[in-house]
């Protein structure tokens, strides 16, 4: 696969990733956000495959496969299981109105592109739009975590943020070493499990969402 084709494909996948991120930000219901982040992880997997074909590095194929298996199938399934077990209301309640969130998101994306444009030579080490899109995705994931009241939505934001980091990491030269990427994914899984357990424990003892608890002050 030629470099030019790889760059174009990465750019296209970047646009699709941004679109799924917008869907997560604008989601009115929890399960839509979960499906959107699953779709996003599928696109990350595809990006990994594209980069694997472009650089000839077999590690990237492995990463693509693991990403799809874990982040597109297993983790969303886990979240949906928790949703069913807990039986929470599906409406996502934001701390700031969704329209304001969308405006902030627009500003973040523009700033990310600005930032990436100001970094001269190292841009060439990272294929296509991966750096600005990765930064944007990561910061937008943080925005979701900060501006949503439901614990599970915060977890979705975390997964989206990690997707952004992965996107940039995969596109750097020949991708980050396999061990590191596997370690990161393992950490994400464990983190998700612990968070899921915390959500369930609080739900069973107190009838409130864990992200809503705010007794500790001062």
């Amino acid at each position: 696969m030629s470099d030019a084709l790889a760059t174009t494909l990465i750019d296209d996948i970047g646009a699709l990733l941004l679109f799924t991120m917008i869907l997560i930000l604008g989601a009115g219901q929890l399960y839509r956000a979960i499906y959107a982040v699953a779709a996003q992880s599928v696109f990350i997997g595809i990006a990994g495959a594209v980069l694997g074909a472009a650089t000839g590095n077999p590690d990237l194929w492995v990463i693509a496969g693991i990403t799809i298996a874990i982040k597109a199938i297993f983790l969303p399934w886990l979240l949906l299981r928790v949703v069913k077990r807990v039986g929470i209301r599906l409406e996502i309640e934001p701390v700031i109105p969704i329209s304001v969130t969308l405006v902030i998101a627009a500003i973040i994306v523009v700033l990310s592109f600005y930032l990436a444009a100001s970094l001269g030579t190292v841009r060439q080490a990272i294929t296509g739009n991966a750096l600005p899109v990765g930064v944007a995705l990561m910061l937008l994931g943080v925005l979701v975590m900060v501006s949503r009241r439901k614990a599970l939505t915060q977890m979705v934001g975390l997964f989206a943020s990690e997707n952004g980091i992965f996107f940039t990491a995969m596109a750097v030269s020949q991708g980050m070493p396999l061990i590191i990427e596997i370690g990161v994914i393992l950490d994400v899984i464990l983190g998700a499990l612990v968070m899921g357990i915390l959500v369930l424990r609080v739900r069973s003892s107190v009838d409130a969402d864990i992200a809503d608890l705010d007794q500790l002050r001062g």
Partner: protein
Amino acid sequence: MHPFEHIAIALGQMGLIVLLAPFTTGFIQKLKARLQCRTGASVWQPYRDLVKLLRKGTVQSDSASAIFRAVPVLVLAATLTAAALVPVVVVRQAPAGALPLGDAILLLSLLALARFLSAVGALDAGGAFGGMGASREMTVGVLVEPVLMLVVFSVAVSTGTTDLGELAARRGLAPLSLHAPDLLALFAMLVLLLAETGRIPVDNPDTHLELTMLHEGMLLEHSGPGLACLVLATHIKQLVVMALVAAVFFPAGMTASLAPVDLALALLVFAGKALLLAVFLALVESSYAKLRFFRLPQFLGVGFLTAFLALALRIL
């Protein structure tokens, strides 16, 4: 090209759209019916409805003025002019100094004008439902029109022109020339398609319950030939927006020559694209419920952000 040829082509495309518009609506209704396991009305029913309406008399409220009678004709005129502007089968380069027969901004302005005139007519009738429908429709308009502009601009920035014919020609008639920002613009456009055609989840075109309609609310007071004009204008607007999507994002298949064979082929391709979009609309209508009105800004906000990003990606 000779200026007369331009006008002739424009009128020809306009006529094409007028003829095909009711069929498109009929097709969508039929497809929706099938998806909902009903038989549904025939695809030609919209034509019959128009003819029926033309034969009926007009009833208007006492507080309506001459504006109320003039509005249907004006709306139809604006929409027809818009139909003349959008390239359907023929793509031609506009010569320097020629009439702006194809400018995208003019097109969007005409559609906005049509919306405005319908609202005025509804308000003029003095009924409560007309007023409510008009205010809701204008709110949707405020949210939708900037997004349309952004989408058109994002594509125009890449080709350097807002003339739709030139835009299509310059983007190349190659089948797949979509790049990353175009994908985003396409997603935004699909959201807008739902809003401009007044379909679920933005509005329900089948309902006649006063509290649930946006567009239908404005038509409530009209009757007879006036209503026929407005209904035809709705059909035409739907097809015009579809043709806009096809011309901007999938210009492949449009021809520059006027040979009959080429024209027929281009017509077939256009019909295919329109039918695809019609299928998309029918599927969306059958799969989702109408959004509550205060949720519309969120839904359209997603479209806005997508279009904004498309433009931003183009520029940055």
